[in-house]
């Protein structure tokens, strides 16, 4: 089991989820920002998704992390990590900030970069993908900065999405 992995960057601690993170997560997923990821959903559905992020570690050996600032790792404000629902497809690199006011400071890029490097170096994964809605300008920039290459052959999930492919040669994204 690899469910106790912690990643650290200059400004961020990426740690396993804890029960107290749920309220903030649920507020995000029941709110308008979740429109980019198939939401908003009910609080009950958010609970299933939250528990499933934890169970994902056991099913796949990797998963999503809670994003915290290094100063205070009790206060999560986003999640980033790897998602693989279908083993026939490469794992997805995901990043999400729960509050609009945390955008524009490079947090998502910093978190996603750490996850990407962990996936390629520690897990030895050969390829990652990312799905970003075409109207989600902030996340499109993150995907491009991290070296994502648009790949129209990859399946998308929610409406009008751009699929990116990442390979270990990828550089960029350093905070």
């Amino acid at each position: 089991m690899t469910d106790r992995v912690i990643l650290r960057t200059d400004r961020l601690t990426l740690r396993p989820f804890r029960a107290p993170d749920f309220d903030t997560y649920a507020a995000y997923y029941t709110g308008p920002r979740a429109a980019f990821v198939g939401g908003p959903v009910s609080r009950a559905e958010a609970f299933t998704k939250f528990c499933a992020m934890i169970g994902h570690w056991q099913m796949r050996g990797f998963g999503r992390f809670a994003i915290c600032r290094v100063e205070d790792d009790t206060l999560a404000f986003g999640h980033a990590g790897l998602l693989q629902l279908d083993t026939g497809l490469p794992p997805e690199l995901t990043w999400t900030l729960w509050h609009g006011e945390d955008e524009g400071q490079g947090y998502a890029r910093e978190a996603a970069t750490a996850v990407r490097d962990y996936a390629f170096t520690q897990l030895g994964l050969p390829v990652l993908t990312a799905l970003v809605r075409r109207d989600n300008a902030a996340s499109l920039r993150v995907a491009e900065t991290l070296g994502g290459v648009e790949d129209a052959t990859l399946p998308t999930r929610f409406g009008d999405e751009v699929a990116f492919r990442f390979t270990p040669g990828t550089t960029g994204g350093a905070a």
Partner: protein
Amino acid sequence: MTTTDIPTLETARLRLSAPEAQDYPDFKATFASYRARFMGGPLNAYETWMLYAAEIGHWQIRGFGMWMVHLKDSDETVGMAGGWQPAKWPEREVAWIIWPDRAGRGFALEATQRVRRYFYESCGWDTAVSYLDPKDLQSIRLAERLGAERDREAATVDGNEVSYRHPAPARLRDSQLAHGIEMEIQNYIDPLFTPKGWALD
């Protein structure tokens, strides 16, 4: 809590252990089937996967959850039983699901009786409910065999289920009810089983 913290429970025929990745195909088959019609199913592939992963995560968030039920002799899985309290659940629920092709052999009774005892004796619960679909007569019958009674005062999840209240811990200690449940389980294990003592009539 990691999976190593989830205790393993045993009964005469069953071993209850943490849900693992390799148990997923059986879960998926059941929740994609008509068997799941009283539990929000049948579910599609995405919903099934998310629910299974959530079953695992529930243990960490709540400190209790659903066990995978294995047969001790062959190790095959026959279903799940345990506690369940997602968001919006008014109370902690005792829940069970047996794979459709393993039903009818008393596994749900034996497993649920064991998990309820664990919650009462090891987790300090003093009550529990089961939220049942009023059309799910099999589950209502099982709740009644376990001594649960319809609780019209108890809140339900969304008004579409009925709440069955499980007997309090004291009512399951050396009581006629407790002995009756044990005898019924024994009867599944050995259909020729006859209780000790003489008929009085």
